[in-house]
């Protein structure tokens, strides 16, 4: 069912060619939503849907876009999709939409989108482009979820709002690490994930 190029497009971004860890794309809007696990999951799903469909749409019309206005065309397609996601979220999960505030809107300027549109969708057929969008979205979501997992577990002792660290620990003198909740620790966490990832994949190391 999957040809070689589609398979690479779908699975490559999960680790070897991860958008956050290797291509360093889309850091902007992602780190601020990772203090808790739930917003990180919602953000990951939204970005996956938007990358997949924007890749598909741009790939379908790629032969009709004049080269010198392609950035505006891409921005319009992406902005329309982001508005749809924003409105859906407002309608069905208003609390979450409040919690994510401007960061849903900022998906428009998420570099993953522009990067994948420029690098892949403009020169490939719709089906591989769609898979590439899904792969990159999931690769981004995985990093988001791992960061949020550690930040919520160490920072508040909960996961998805449920208490994980038992009360007995607190009685013995354990306390939550408030520093993990603060935004700068998201960067340090991603730095550590990059460290781990590159020590596993030696060829990605910089000289």
């Amino acid at each position: 069912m999957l040809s070689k190029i589609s398979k690479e497009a779908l699975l490559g971004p999960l680790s070897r060619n991860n958008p956050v860890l290797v291509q360093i794309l889309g850091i902007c809007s992602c780190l601020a939503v990772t203090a808790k696990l739930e917003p990180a999951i919602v953000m990951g799903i939204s970005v996956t849907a938007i990358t997949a469909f924007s890749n598909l749409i741009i790939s379908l019309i790629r032969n009709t876009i004049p080269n010198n206005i392609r950035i505006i065309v891409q921005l319009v397609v992406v902005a329309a999709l982001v508005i749809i996601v924003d409105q859906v979220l407002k309608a069905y999960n208003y609390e979450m939409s409040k919690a994510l505030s401007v960061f849903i809107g900022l998906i428009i300027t998420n570099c993953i989108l522009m990067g994948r549109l420029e690098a892949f969708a403009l020169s490939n057929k719709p089906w591989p482009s769609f898979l590439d969008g899904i792969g990159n979205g999931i690769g981004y979501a995985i990093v988001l979820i791992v960061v949020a997992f550690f930040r919520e577990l160490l920072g508040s002792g909960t996961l998805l709002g449920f208490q994980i660290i038992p009360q007995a620990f607190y009685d013995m003198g354990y306390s939550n690490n408030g520093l993990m909740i603060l935004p700068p620790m998201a960067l340090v966490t991603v730095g550590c994930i990059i460290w781990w990832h590159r020590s596993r994949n030696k060829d990605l190391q910089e000289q």
Partner: protein
Amino acid sequence: MEDLNLFIKSIFIDNMIFAYFLGMCSFLAVSKNVSTSFGLGIAVTFMLVVTLPLNYLLDNYLLQPGALSWLGEEFATVDLSFLALIMFIAVIASMTQLVEMAVEKFSPSLYASLGIFLPLIAVNCAILGCALFMQQRDFGSAWTATVYGAGSGIGWTLAIVGLAAIREKLAYSNIPKPLRGIGITFILTGLMGIAFMSFLGIKL
């Protein structure tokens, strides 16, 4: 006085990089040496100062619920606020294009030094982010929005120049291999963010 307060606050306390992580991609990619990162900082500040008041006027006289009432009674109930995202990004993208053309015409030397960064600014999240924060905070006038834009831009410049200076020195230190390059830059930014947090709670 209010405006001065907002200005200082948006430079240090609500710093675009360290408090909201906006404009991170170009921040990490371009901060390899001080002079180019300073150029990019100036370009971002300039774009913020130009686009924020424009977006403010658009938001207040076109998009918000009831904003169209200057057209007549029957328009008073129109709510176009769902179009805000697409309008803001269109203003930013077209202003980038205009500024690029103007700079190329009137100051070729500045254009040569900024050239590659100018088109990149259209997708810099700091600028769209600022517009969205402005919408959220309900500023009183276009002047306040301009002050907020200038403050945020200067804060961004300060952060990128600081990181570039550290990275220039970093070339001489012995970093574990897997951490070299982007990994250590992330951790550095995190540490700088913690340092900037000491400004929290300052009231002017």
